């Protein structure tokens, strides 16, 4: 994935890529994102997935690829 803003290239695993695409498609609450990702990856929408997605969101925010709207 190429970040035109920074010029950085990022290598992502499937969950990270799916999460980024889900955020791009419909930024919203965590539950909505997890539901969308579970559907996209055909995996079970459960607590484990939700935790994993939260971790991915934190990493994406740290690298500047997404921005949290929570104050």
């Amino acid at each position, binding site marked *: 994935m*190429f970040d*035109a803003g920074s*010029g950085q*290239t990022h*290598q992502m695993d499937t969950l990270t890529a799916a999460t980024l695409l889900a955020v791009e498609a419909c930024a919203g609450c965590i539950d909505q994102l997890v539901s969308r990702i579970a559907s996209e990856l055909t995996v079970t929408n459960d607590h484990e997935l939700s935790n994993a997605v939260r971790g991915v969101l934190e990493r994406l925010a740290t690298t500047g690829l997404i921005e949290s709207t929570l104050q």
Partner: protein
Amino acid sequence: MTLSDLSPVEVSRRLGGGGLTIRTGPFNFRIVSGIQSVAEGLAALYSDYPLADDHEFVDFTVTLARSRGLRRWWRPQVKFTYDGQSPFAPLPVDHAFPLLEWAMNWCISTQAHQYLCLHAAVIEKNGFAAIMPAPPGSGKSTLCAGLVSRGWRLLSDELTLISLTDGLIVPLGRPISLKNESLDVIRQFVPGAVLNRVTHDTSKGSVSHMKVPVSHVNRLNDQARAGWVIFPKYVPDAGAELTARSKANSMLELGRNAFNYTVLGLAGFEMLADVVSASDCYDFTYSRLDDAVSVFDRLAEGRSA
């Protein structure tokens, strides 16, 4: 007209005067130098290359001149100048020919941004190119020289030029740089190889360059499409073995081996992604060139243009 059409006296006269303009792949280099080893190296290695006409555009003018002052007599040095800049420190004057080759690489890698420029050898067979990025000491040029002497066509031993227009790989076709142990390896593997005189005690050790077969020089306009990305590594006593490598990781590693990936931005990313998508990616270990050639030939048999 090729360089071999000129007498040695005329070669030296042009080099010492307005310059000798040689075409290597898509570039015209005007070389200016009064140093005899430069004339000798060019005569030995570039005899089959076309000379550009006077009216043709010159991409790069490279000047190699003896340093002035005390250095004219005491441990004489050679200085590379391009457009009034001297990007390298002066070197002992007997390093003039390898300095010319390094200077030509520098000109291309720092300025030819109409190409995605990778630090990688690249060879071709059946219309498909094998791109071989690797750090110094990995046996990249030795492998390249071995394959070129066994039916693979040299596109470049050092700089892979990928056109941003169509993604095709553009031959550069310059002499193959060899150093240290690889000199004897290639002399034994390619008994008829033409190497210019060895320059000792350079920053890379003892270096020489191998002449490119004339049939390859005659095909400098024949571009190739990417077929493989192969990361070679010489490992003593190892068998010749290909190991599949992920495309994502291969792309990142290719990006690290690019001279202008960050300069090109999104265009560079998209071109690199296209190249990697179209290529089978491998790590490759080898110790014997014969075995390596067999493995590469099997790869080529599996694809045809």
